[in-house]
């Protein structure tokens, strides 16, 4: 048990994920064959020895509640502490993370640990947070902000930092055109519980709601904010194309090794699927296949989630098929992303392109 308490924000955000976030929050979006996006940051916390995690919920959080349950699959179903789901406290609009935190102020007061790590639910990362925490303590910083030097493909709403030679954040930007020399924030922050409470109180008294605006930008001089640079895998997925590209990137061994780091396994909700069966007529190449699948057709360069069936003669290429998809005989799918429980009937042909994959919504029968 260490001095860190985890807080994950599952707040509504402008999303280009279209059907994938229809009736679900970004943290609930299935990823990598058997996970939901929130599993990654949650596992990073658990693997760092964090025993208490609060998830601040907003919007359509039904799916997330069902997925997280009591927290048992992340070893967070405890006698004291463990996982706490924090639904919205009031009907008032939540305009930013500070307001979200103000809404759970009583919970914040009850935190048993000395420090808090804040993170977003849809950051896909496998990071040793215990190391980030140790560096925070050693540096004497008020706030440690995890960031990356890799600014390619940054989301539109990204935050950027300028770090001095000692790693201190001297400026915070948003909507930056020229990101050269800057680091992109991964929106993971470590600070003391006391400082968090003080900042929340101060901001609310001034009707400030943005963590970025009211704290990172406004207080760059009065607070010592340090950057922890993480240049390994980190994905902030905001569009369908990014979702597709980041998923396909997992075919690469080096990337898989970073995401599924052997010493820091990713926890997720267990399902009772049997091992996957590949038929003599089945064909499977360069693909990620979860348990419980039956493959009688051809699957290439694709990701199959748990329980997917691909019937004889079907051709699945460059696709992402989420849980329990059923692809009928002789169907042809190229560059298609199917959400949960989609049924593709016999001989149907669906062709997207790598620039614009076709997304089929949950439960559709095509």
């Amino acid at each position, binding site marked *: 048990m260490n001095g860190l308490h985890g807080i994950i924000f599952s707040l509504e955000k402008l999303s280009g994920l279209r059907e994938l976030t229809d009736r679900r929050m970004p943290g609930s979006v299935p990823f990598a*064959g058997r996970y939901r996006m929130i599993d990654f940051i949650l596992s990073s916390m658990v693997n760092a020895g964090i025993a208490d995690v609060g998830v601040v919920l907003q919007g359509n959080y039904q799916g997330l509640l069902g997925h997280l349950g009591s927290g048992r699959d992340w070893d967070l179903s405890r006698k004291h502490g463990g996982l706490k789901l924090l639904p919205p406290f009031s009907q008032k609009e939540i305009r930013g993370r500070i307001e979200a935190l103000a809404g759970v102020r009583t919970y914040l007061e009850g935190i048993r640990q000395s420090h808090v790590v804040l993170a977003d639910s849809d950051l896909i990362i496998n990071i040793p947070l215990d190391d980030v925490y140790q560096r925070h303590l050693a540096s004497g910083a008020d706030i440690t902000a995890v960031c990356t030097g890799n600014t390619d493909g940054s989301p539109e709403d990204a935050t950027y930092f300028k770090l001095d030679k000692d790693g201190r954040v001297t400026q915070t930007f948003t909507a930056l055109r020229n990101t050269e020399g800057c680091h992109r924030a991964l929106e993971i922050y470590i600070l003391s519980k006391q400082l968090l409470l003080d900042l929340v109180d101060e901001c609310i008294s001034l009707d400030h709601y943005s963590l970025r605006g009211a704290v990172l930008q406004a207080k760059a001089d009065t607070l010592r904010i340090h950057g922890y640079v993480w240049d390994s895998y980190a994905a902030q997925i905001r569009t369908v194309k990014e979702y597709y590209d980041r998923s396909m990137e997992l075919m690469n061994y080096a990337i898989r090794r970073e995401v599924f780091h052997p010493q820091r396994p990713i926890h997720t909700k267990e399902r009772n699927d049997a*091992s996957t*069966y*590949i038929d*003599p007529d089945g064909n499977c190449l360069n693909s990620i*296949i979860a*348990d419980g699948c039956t493959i009688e057709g051809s699957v290439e360069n694709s990701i199959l989630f748990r329980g997917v069936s691909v019937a004889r003669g079907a051709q699945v290429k460059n696709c992402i098929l989420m849980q329990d998809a059923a692809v009928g005989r002789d169907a042809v799918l190229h560059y298609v992303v199917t959400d949960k429980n989609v049924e593709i009937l016999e001989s149907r042909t669906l062709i997207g392109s790598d620039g614009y994959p076709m997304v089929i919504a949950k439960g559709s029968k095509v």
Partner: protein
Amino acid sequence: MKKECIAMLLAGGQGSRLYVLTSDVAKPAVPFGGKYRIIDFPLSNCTNAGIDTVGVLTQYKPLELNSYIGSGQPWDLDRLDGGVHILPPYMQEGEKGSWYKGTANAIYQNIGFVDMYDPEYVVILSGDHIYKMDYSKMVEAHKAAGAACTISVMEVPWDEASRFGIMAVDGNDNIVEFQEKPKQPKSNLASMGIYVFTWQKLREYLISDENDPASSNDFGKNIIPNMLNAGEVMFAYRFDGYWKDVGTLESLWDANMDMLSRGDLDLLESSWPIYARLPLKPPAFIGAGALVEHSVVTQGCDVQGTVKNSVLSHSVVIEEGAEVLYSVLMPGVTVKKGASVRYAILGENVQVEAGAKIGESPENYDPDKWGITVLGPGASIAADQVVTPKTMLNRELKEVSR
């Protein structure tokens, strides 16, 4: 709290006919079917049948089995009242106490445990069998027959009947005679070693059997014949699903291959799920040069080579150019570049270095000398080494004879 029915699962045997596969673990803990271990079948059957209290009697090298079962949560057997309980032999006052002397003695020594739940019926199971069965139906049949004991039976081919414990029955399927491996079988109904007893009756017979110094304290040899001879009502419950005793290397291999054919034992069919405890692993990856046919892969596998007619448990790595045919690979096995594994069972964490050749297909070998090749858990086969068919090697690479 009183329960109508509890189950007692005999998991104490050494499984000596699995040789190196049980050198470190009890037989019920041996991996099966990719994702599972043998004990997952009786445990899951209990859960699905609504039996929430299961005593698991362990004795031989129980460490892995005990850790695997834990609090029983994966099988939904972590309950406020009841749940799964590991029951090892124990000492009593005056330094008295003994290892379990036989299957009946194991239950005898745990009369106290059973009495805690004061059940009407006790289901006696073994941890050696692969099958899906609804025990609640067997208990219903037991009640309807007014029996003291109900034995689950399967029809076997007449020419094989002499290998089994045979139950001869009357027109109501009441057992009239019991023949152990008879030369002239009077019926082709073989006992599956699964029993339902009315507890108060079984309790009496266990006590009197314990007081008989000539007894082997075994259900099949003593309790059942004693009850039959005393005129108790014994019912034969017919079962016609898939059932296999995986007590030998050949039957373990066969049962894995049966599972692949997805006939009567279709594990992907989810109306009667089999539960298991698994480590956290990413989904399997099948590479660009891989060829996988009529096989099963599990989480954590990385397949870059050829796999046909085989069963891969979790975390198995098959490198490029490696070939695995008609084999059963347990968790953590690695088969390196250019190596070949044919008609073999590889225990947990076996490492097969590049170019090694394990076993051979029967069509390419002298039929008199051919057999399944078995490598015990932890064995590491050096590069280019050849292990001939029917060889069995332990962790130290010493040959073990059957």
